[in-house]
């Protein structure tokens, strides 16, 4: 089978009509995150199975058509205007069966899923929705009806599509290495082993018919019809019990399978959590230190703000304050001079020594007149004493000024001292601020490094470290609940198996009784009994063959998977992994060349191992059925390194007749890939901004698929 082309019209990221011609061999599609890879992947699924894959949500069956049509086209749909959306796959040689049935003249089939939306007064109505498969036969144009059935039976069965057309992120669900039933399910789904089950089903049906015929014969020969009928009723009841118990077991097994998958998923997440502990504690340590430095910076800043508005704003005023003290002194000098002048005595005024003499002698020594103690003359002479020590009052204006100057004159010196302290305080602040900034810069660098380590870890392991750690307790609780349910199922299964065993024993005994009631000797050699025995032998033989074939297939899968693994990891000297599969238990063990356990490998390597096993089974199946299916995968390598990605892509081109690989990891190697003769076609997903004056947004961009090789 080969997909010749895919055409899209207004489908999700692809505006208008776009057509891609696909080549035999490897078709590579390169595009960044959000460039439209998943839209392209979904185009195949929506066209064939009417479902799309949504990241982190999983599969969505019959998605809302408004989510399928190109967003920017729908956004600008005018009143009463219609928009057509379709995906058309043109496929050559789907399989021998369909070619034989349809008598197509060119073995080319066009599968188209389409719909038309109309803007009806602001409401979006579905005008038309169709799915058809078209081909050309000798009579001209023909349509296959019902098309859904043909897709399932003759093109790519949906169950198989999951394994050959997958999203990188869903690979864990396809094959769980920790769960043996998961591997068994993969083998049963995509290998040829299911053929044996189909044969067994047919043989069992034949066997049942022979039983029925034998019973009729036995009834005709029995002497005790009542006893025969009673026993037959008992047999039927027990047969019904077996059927019912089988149904119960199937249901329980299926539930247990899901629980085991979920348990494995949780355990894997919890294992990842152990590895993240160290990273998280380092990040927490750095964050705590950062918080402490930021807190210190805040405190320093607050202190500085208070100091700034209280005193630091005065910095630099020293020269002015010094100068002001001179100006104040100028006033004092002026005033003192004025006072001194006031105190100057006239030349004829005697000094204090003469005055004291006059007071003692009680007479004026200048004029000779008497000045008796207590007389007015004596008091006049006494008033002239100590004149220089008495304050002199100047004019009121000068005295007022003096008051102001006196109130200010002590300040220049004390403020100068304050300013010297302010300078020291500011210097201290700057030093402390510098140290804290330096510390914060170092911690920021360390934070960037740890964030980078965490991001690399997340990319490599495919998990989110934060939600992971937050959810760990939740996960442990969930795991406990699943464990309880698992034990209950195990108990119910044992009970059911025991009831089934009892019923089978009763059936065996009933059959023997019925045989005796019918007259065993006479009926031993009847044709009916012979047929029944032969069919039972055949069933046993097919079962045995299936077991042998299964064992052989597992050995082949193991061998070829290991070849694929070593091919992909050829360049990687750090790891030499191989798998060992036990055909009885279906347990897959990953070991190194010395058979040492490697089950704790990182997600990237586990992905390589899983894809190698799946690809092995598909290639074995293709060889057996002689029907190579095309291979399609979106972002299969998101947790692989570049070299592993290139080796993987190379391997795919060797296994599948046609493969379509969508990846974001090829950009750097695109020139080298263009020169690779094994790759016939390379395409780019290019985002186009409709209106460059506007910011890139969903309604303003679409994806263009450009062929670059």
């Amino acid at each position, binding site marked *: 089978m080969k997909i010749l082309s895919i055409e899209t019209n207004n489908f999700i990221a692809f505006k208008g009509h776009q057509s891609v011609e696909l080549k035999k061999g490897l078709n590579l599609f390169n595009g960044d995150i959000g460039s439209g890879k998943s839209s392209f992947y979904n185009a195949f699924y929506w066209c064939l199975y009417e479902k799309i894959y949504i990241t982190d949500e999983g599969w969505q069956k019959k998605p809302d058509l408004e989510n399928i049509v190109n967003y920017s086209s729908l956004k600008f749909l005018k009143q009463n205007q219609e928009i057509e959306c379709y995906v058309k796959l043109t496929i050559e040689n789907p399989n021998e069966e369909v070619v034989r049935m349809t008598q197509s003249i060119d073995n080319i089939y066009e599968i188209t899923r389409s719909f038309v939306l109309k803007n009806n007064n602001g409401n979006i109505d579905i005008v038309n929705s169709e799915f058809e498969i078209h081909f050309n036969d000798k009579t001209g144009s023909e349509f296959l009806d019902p098309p859904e059935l043909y897709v399932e039976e003759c093109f790519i069965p949906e169950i198989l599509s999951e394994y050959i057309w997958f999203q990188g992120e869903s690979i864990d669900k396809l094959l769980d290495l920790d769960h043996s039933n998961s591997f068994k399910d993969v083998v049963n789904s995509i290998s040829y082993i299911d053929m044996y089950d189909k044969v067994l089903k047919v043989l069992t049906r034949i066997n049942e018919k022979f039983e029925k015929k034998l019973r009729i014969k036995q009834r005709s020969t029995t002497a005790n019809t009542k006893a025969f009928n009673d026993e037959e009723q008992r047999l039927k009841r027990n047969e019904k019990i077996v059927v019912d118990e089988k149904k119960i077991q199937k249901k329980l097994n299926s539930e247990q399978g899901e629980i085991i998958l979920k348990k494995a998923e949780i355990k894997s997440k919890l294992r990842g959590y152990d590895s993240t502990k160290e990273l998280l504690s380092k990040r927490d340590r750095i964050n705590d230190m950062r918080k402490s430095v930021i807190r210190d*910076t*805040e405190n320093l*800043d*607050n202190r*500085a*703000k*208070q100091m*700034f*508005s*209280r*005193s*630091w*704003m*005065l*910095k*630099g*005023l020293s020269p*002015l*304050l010094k*100068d*002001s*003290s001179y*100006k*104040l002194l*100028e*006033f004092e000098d002026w005033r003192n001079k004025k006072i001194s002048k006031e105190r100057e005595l006239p030349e004829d005024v005697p000094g204090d020594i003469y005055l004291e003499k006059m007071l003692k002698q009680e007479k004026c020594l200048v004029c000779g007149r008497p000045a008796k103690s207590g007389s007015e003359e004596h008091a006049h002479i006494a008033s002239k004493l100590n004149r220089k020590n008495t304050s002199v009052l100047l004019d009121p*204006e000068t005295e*007022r*000024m003096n*008051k*102001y*100057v*006196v*109130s*200010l004159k*002590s*300040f*220049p010196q004390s*403020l100068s001292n*304050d300013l010297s302290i302010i300078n020291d305080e*500011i210097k201290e*602040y*700057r030093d402390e601020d510098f140290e804290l900034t330096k510390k914060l810069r170092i911690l920021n660098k360390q934070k960037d490094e740890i964030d980078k380590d965490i991001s690399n870890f997340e990319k490599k392991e495919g998990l989110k470290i934060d939600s992971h750690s937050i959810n760990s307790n939740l996960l442990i609780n969930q795991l406990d609940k699943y464990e309880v349910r698992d034990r209950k199922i195990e108990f119910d299964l044992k009970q059911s198996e025991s009831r089934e065993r009892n019923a089978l024993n009763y059936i065996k005994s009933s059959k023997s009784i019925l045989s005796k009631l019918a007259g065993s000797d006479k009926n031993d050699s009847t044709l009916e009994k012979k047929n029944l025995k032969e069919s039972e032998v055949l069933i046993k033989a097919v079962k045995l063959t299936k077991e042998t074939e299964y064992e052989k297939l597992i050995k082949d899968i193991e061998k070829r998977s290991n070849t694929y693994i070593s091919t992909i990891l050829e360049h990687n000297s750090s790891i030499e992994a191989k798998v060992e599969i036990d055909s009885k238990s279906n347990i897959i063990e990953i070991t190194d060349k010395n058979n040492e356990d490697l089950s704790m490998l990182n997600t990237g390597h586990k992905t390589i191992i899983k894809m190698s096993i799946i690809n092995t089974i598909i290639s074995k199946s293709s060889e057996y059925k002689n029907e190579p299916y095309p291979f399609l995968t979106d972002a299969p390598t998101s947790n692989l390194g570049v070299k592993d990605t290139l080796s993987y892509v190379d391997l795919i081109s060797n296994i599948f007749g046609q493969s379509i690989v969508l990846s974001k990891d090829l950009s750097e190697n695109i020139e080298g890939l263009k020169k690779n003769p094994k790759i016939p076609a390379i395409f780019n997903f290019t985002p186009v901004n409709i209106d460059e004056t506007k910011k890139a947004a969903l309604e303003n961009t679409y994806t263009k698929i450009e062929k670059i090789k």
Partner: protein
Amino acid sequence: MRHGDLFQELSSLSPNFYESNYNEIMEPFSDKQSQSADYGGKAFTMRWQPFMYACILGLINKRRVPFQNRPNDKNKSGDVFNYQVIFNQGHKILVSVILSVISLNKDGYKILSDKNKLNEEISNYANGGFEIIREMQDDGISFGFSDFMTEISERK
């Protein structure tokens, strides 16, 4: 410490400033709600503080800009704060400013004899300081707290 009647006489007066300087510098730089000035908050907690900061800036840079009649930029004073508030909350700053005005005034201490003249001189230097702040803003200095710190660190 006695301050005499100088401050008593000055206390009833209010400094002058343009309305635009109040609206665009004093108001945005001071955070009246936050007395403790939290991290990321403004540099000043009182309205008079940015005024006195501008005055000191004018004094240090000897930028004295007398008020002119500006038709679209009215004079605003009294209703915001008076010298009593400055004296009560930042007497060292007020004394420093008065002493610096004396230092720069051509009549020296004589300015003390006229309180209105002293107020006018303080207001003129603040007006000069506001001009300097505006020039720095025009040069792209946003004037967060760190810019204030840088400015005072660069002073001699």
